[in-house]
């Protein structure tokens, strides 16, 4: 037996997370990893070196007090660990699951230099789950009401974080959500098998217990504008966390054929509308051969969803090579284990259909990597005469989004970039309009849950300062 990976007592390897077997989980929507047991969590937590100058904390966009909460787990003080986490992170059960720890906290861990870093994400998830499952979640005391109202647009990670910070400071906080369910991308985008909806629901219930009001089916820019909120409805400030927006398409022939979805639509049907369940009234094409175009986390989610909906074969088509894929390594690994086929250096040029418009194949060309482009990644170039068809009945386009113009177009004094994102001062979250703040994907373009949360937190700090 090799030294690495099997030794759970030493400092070198981490305690592995038990998971559903790949071929079993590929047929269900239940969460893939099971989470640590108490013993496993303690064992993993004990690996932490308790560095005097913890680099992991610097690697975290919201500076979670990592050595402290990990230390509490090592001592078996699980509820205390969860509360320590919540001092800086409003959604630890979510972040423990979907944060790219390998690029953040864990990438800075000293242990990672010679072996595996401490499994900060797994431990975060453990503490938050333990507190919730044991029913010992504490409702922290909020400051006395200050009589000022703040509106939050969107109930995704940015909005939820901002709301959590402000309610504790004594503000009256109302979240306006366009959909019928709260959570934003956490409910319509990220699938159940990666982030159970029950967890998101509990986090939102927690905010409601703190006193946050939630208005569902309320579209800012339509049902009321930002100016209505500020001028007529008595709000002193508005935070815009409206999310990534409109799906991009490739502008190739056949893109409106039947069986072609944006990843947003495909995932919304499956996640938000629960089309995977036989009791759902919302239909979805359960392709036998599904192709997802793109190489990000959303593409992995879509391809893995297609498999769970019953595809015999679920394929990824990506125009660059594996090294350039923006998806988390762990997600790519999970997808590979489940049998997703990766067609790399492959670019779609047309979507073919039968006479009724139903998709029959994706026509692609082979690519090779040329000189680095503006992003620093080697630019894919078409291999002449390499056209070929991949038979399929569902095509899911997961190549990104453009910002939703709903708020900028109805609030003319908010400055937007040439890409349509809202321009803010990064360090404060302030927009060009007084008492209007923004954060998350509407500012950065598609990014991560934790970055959106960080932005929600920064904006909350500015709101507290500006409304003094």
């Amino acid at each position, binding site marked *: 037996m090799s030294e690495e990976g099997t030794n759970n007592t030493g400092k070198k390897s981490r305690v592995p997370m038990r998971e559903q077997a790949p071929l079993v989980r590929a047929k269900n929507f239940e969460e893939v990893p099971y989470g640590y047991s108490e013993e496993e969590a303690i064992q993993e937590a004990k690996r932490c070196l308790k560095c005097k100058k913890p680099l992991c904390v610097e690697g975290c966009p919201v500076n979670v007090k990592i050595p402290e909460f990990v230390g509490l787990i090592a001592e078996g003080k699980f509820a205390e660990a969860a509360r320590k986490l919540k001092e800086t992170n409003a959604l630890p059960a979510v972040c423990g699951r979907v944060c790219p720890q390998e690029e953040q906290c864990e990438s800075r861990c000293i242990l990672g230099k010679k072996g595996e870093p401490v499994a900060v994400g797994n431990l975060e998830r453990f503490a938050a789950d333990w507190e919730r499952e044991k029913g010992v979640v504490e409702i922290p005391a909020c400051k006395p009401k200050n009589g000022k109202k703040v509106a939050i647009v969107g109930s995704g990670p940015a909005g939820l974080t901002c709301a959590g910070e402000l309610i504790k400071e004594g503000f009256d906080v109302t979240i306006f959500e366009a959909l019928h369910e709260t959570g934003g991308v956490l409910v319509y985008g990220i699938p159940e098998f990666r982030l159970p909806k029950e967890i998101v629901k509990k986090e939102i219930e927690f905010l409601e217990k703190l006193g946050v009001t939630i208005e569902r089916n309320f579209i800012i820019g339509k049902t009321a504008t930002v100016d209505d909120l500020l001028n007529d409805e008595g709000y002193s400030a508005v935070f815009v966390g409206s999310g990534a927006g*409109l799906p991009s398409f490739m502008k190739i022939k056949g893109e409106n054929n039947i069986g072609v979805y944006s990843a947003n639509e495909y995932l919304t049907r499956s996640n938000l509308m629960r089309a995977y369940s036989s009791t759902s009234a919302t239909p979805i094409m359960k392709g036998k051969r599904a192709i997802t175009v793109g190489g990000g986390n959303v593409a992995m989610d879509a391809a893995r969803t297609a498999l769970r909906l019953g595809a015999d074969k679920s394929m990824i088509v990506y125009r660059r090579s594996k090294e350039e894929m923006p998806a988390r390594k762990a997600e790519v690994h999970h997808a590979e284990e489940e049998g997703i086929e990766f067609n790399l250096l492959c670019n779609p040029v047309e979507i073919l259909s039968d006479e009724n418009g139903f998709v029959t194949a994706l026509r692609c060309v082979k690519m090779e990597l040329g000189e680095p482009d503006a992003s620093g990644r080697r630019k894919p170039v078409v291999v002449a005469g390499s056209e070929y068809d991949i038979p399929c009945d569902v095509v899911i386009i997961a190549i990104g989004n453009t910002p*939703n113009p709903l708020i900028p177009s109805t609030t003319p004094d908010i400055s937007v970039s040439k890409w349509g994102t809202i321009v803010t001062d990064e360090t404060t979250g302030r927009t060009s309009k007084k008492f209007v703040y923004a954060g998350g994907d509407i500012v950065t373009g598609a990014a991560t849950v934790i970055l959106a949360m960080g932005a929600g937190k920064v904006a909350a700090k500015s709101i507290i300062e500006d409304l003094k």
Partner: protein
Amino acid sequence: MFRILKREQLSEQVWRYRLDAPRIANKRKAGQFIILRPTSQSERIPLTIANANADEGWIEIIFQVVGKTTMVLQALQEGSSILDLAGPLGKPTHIEKFGKCLCIGGGVGVAPLYPIVCALKAAGNELTTVIGARNKSLLILEKEMAAQSDLFIPTTDDGSNGRKGFVSDVFKELIGKGEIFDAAFVIGPVMMMKVTTTLTVAEKIPTFASLNPIMIDGTGMCGGCRVSVNGETKFACVDGPEFDAAGIDWNELIRRLNSYKMFESKARDDHNCHLEGALK
């Protein structure tokens, strides 16, 4: 929750609900729609706002029972509530004083045409309104439409009310009589819109059609409602629902509207196959 203040049957399969929705009533303009979900088990479906009163805080929707969701909606009684309702969505109809306007509505499409007729009238246009349905019992909003129009022509396929024939036949007659129109608004079943707007466009009348493709969120997020207009992909929920009829790819729209119909019947066939297998 959005209370049903009034529930009326307009024809055999068509219902009018007045809903308590003060915020939407306050903001809505002609041509806009809402998305609703009657119960937690239902789909989200788009429906045009057929009428509204900002002072009294209500909107009206008119729908035809065609599938599962509209069936569930129809089963809700006066005084009970619709679980989810969001809007007003889409761009309002562009209203100006065009001069002489032709408004053509077919079937339940007469409902979304009504607020447009009212707005055009209020803007000082001279209105010729043509509404049609398969038969007398399916013809809706006759009185309301007549009251707004300078010339009102009802028609039924079987001649049981008004003249006999299609709305497109009426249009041909009007043109034959030398009538000239500055703008046309056409709403109805997609095939009726395709046929009728082909005629109006051929007469060089600027024509607008209101499209009702499959949607989920209605705010641009899912892209399910995409339609090709002048060779460009548009999202009906945010770029529409009204488009220049001359540029609409009608065949693509018809195919996309049928996506799940064919899928459902396929599923039914599959199901039958299993049953036959079991019987053997």
